[in-house]
C-alpha cells in the first residue's frame, strides 16, 4: 500500500459506491435507483452489476405478493406460517388474479422506497472505510519517513498497514451485516404489509376495518399503538392508517399507527376486521352477537 492522495481516496470511495449501487440495482432494479442507461452500462462493464442476477431476484415484489395473497393462500389450504417461500411462490403462480396497474405501481413504489433506505448503509460503509483508511494512511506516511531508504522495511510497513485495515474492515463488516438484516427485515415487512392492505382495499374498499397484531414479544411502542388498554387489538379504518403515512423521520413521541413497519425491526401484521366483529381476550376475532346489527 502506498500513502494515498486525494485522488486515490476519491477512487476508493467510488469503488465502494459502485459496488453498493450495483448490489442494490440487482435487488431492486435500476429503475428504483433512478439509474440511466449510461450508469447501468458503466456498472455492468466494471463488474459491479450482473444483469442475470438482477433478473433472478425481486425481493420487494415477492414480499408484496406474499402479503397480497396471504388470505387467498390460506383459503387455498396453504399454511403460510410454516410453508417455505418456494412453496408459497409456486402456489401464487397458480392464482388467477394478476395485479392491477395500481398495485403494480405500489410494488414499484415499494422497490424505490427500499432502495432509498438501503442507500444509507452504502454511504455509511463508504464513510467508515475512509475513516479506517485515513489514520492508517497517516501512520504509514510516518513509518515510511523513518525507513525511507530501506525498501524491504517499507514493503513490510505497507503490508502491515493493509493487514490492520483488513482487520478493521472485518470488524466493521459485522456491524454492516446486522444493519443489513435490520433493513431487510423492516423493508420486507413494509412491502408485505402494503400488499396485505392493498388486497383488502381492492376487495372491501378504502374504509375497510383493520387491526395490526403485534408479536407476543412486541415492544411497548407497538403495543401502545395497536392494542387497547385491555390488550385487545384496536380497530382502525385502513384509510386512516394510510393517511398517517410512515413513521420514518418522525421522533418516537410522534409515531402514529401506520400500514407499514411501525419502526425498524417491527413485524406487526395487518388483518381485516369484518364489520360488526370484535376482538376477544385471546386475540381472536368474534362475530357480532346474534340479533345485533353490523
Amino acid at each position, binding site marked *: 500500500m502506498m500513502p494515498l492522495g486525494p485522488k486515490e481516496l476519491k477512487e476508493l470511495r467510488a469503488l465502494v459506491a459502485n459496488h453498493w449501487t450495483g448490489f442494490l440495482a440487482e435487488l431492486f432494479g435500476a429503475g428504483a435507483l433512478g439509474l440511466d442507461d449510461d450508469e447501468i452500462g458503466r456498472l455492468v462493464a466494471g463488474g459491479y452489476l450482473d444483469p442475470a442476477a438482477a433478473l433472478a431476484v425481486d425481493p420487494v415484489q415477492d414480499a408484496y405478493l*406474499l402479503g397480497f395473497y396471504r388470505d387467498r393462500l390460506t383459503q387455498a389450504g396453504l399454511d403460510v406460517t410454516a410453508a417455505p417461500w418456494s412453496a408459497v411462490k409456486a402456489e401464487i403462480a397458480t392464482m388467477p388474479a394478476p395485479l392491477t396497474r395500481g398495485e403494480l405501481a405500489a410494488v414499484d413504489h415499494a422497490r424505490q422506497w427500499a432502495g432509498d433506505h438501503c442507500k444509507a448503509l452504502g454511504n455509511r460503509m463508504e464513510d467508515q472505510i475512509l475513516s479506517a483508511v485515513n489514520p492508517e494512511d497517516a501512520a504509514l506516511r510516518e513509518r515510511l519517513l523513518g525507513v525511507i531508504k530501506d525498501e524491504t522495511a517499507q514493503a513490510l510497513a505497507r503490508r502491515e498497514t493493509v493487514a490492520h485495515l483488513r482487520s478493521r474492515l472485518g470488524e466493521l463488516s459485522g456491524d454492516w451485516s446486522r444493519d443489513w438484516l435490520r433493513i431487510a427485515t423492516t423493508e420486507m415487512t413494509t412491502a408485505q404489509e402494503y400488499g396485505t392492505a392493498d388486497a383488502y382495499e381492492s376487495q372491501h374498499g378504502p374504509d375497510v376495518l383493520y387491526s395490526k397484531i403485534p408479536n407476543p414479544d412486541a415492544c411497548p411502542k407497538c403495543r401502545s399503538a395497536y392494542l387497547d388498554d385491555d390488550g385487545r387489538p384496536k380497530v382502525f379504518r385502513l384509510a386512516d392508517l394510510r393517511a398517517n403515512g410512515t413513521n420514518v423521520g418522525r421522533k418516537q413521541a410522534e409515531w402514529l399507527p401506520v400500514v407499514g413497519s411501525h419502526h425498524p425491526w417491527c413485524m406487526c401484521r395487518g388483518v381485516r376486521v369484518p364489520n360488526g366483529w370484535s376482538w376477544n381476550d385471546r386475540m381472536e376475532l368474534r362475530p357480532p352477537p346474534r340479533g345485533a346489527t353490523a
Partner: protein
Amino acid sequence: MRFTIEETYPGELVEREEETRKSLDDVLARAVAKAHAGAGQPSPTRDPMRPSRDLVDRMGALFAARLPRILDDVATFLQAERPR
C-alpha cells in the same frame, strides 16, 4: 555498512509474510462467517411466518455473497502498485 532486513533476518521476513497472509485469510473468513451468521439467524427476525423469514434470509445471503467482494476489491485497491 547497512543491511536490509531481508539480509539480516531472512527467516523472520518469510515468517512475517506468512503471518500477514494468514491473518488476511482469517479476517476475510471471519467477515464472511459473520455475514452468513447474520443471514441465517432466525432469532432477530422473530417472525412467525416462515416465508417472510425465508425472504429476509435470502436478502441476508445476497449481502453475505457481496460483502467479501467489496472487502477484496478494497484490499486489492489498497495494495495496487502506483507510480511514486
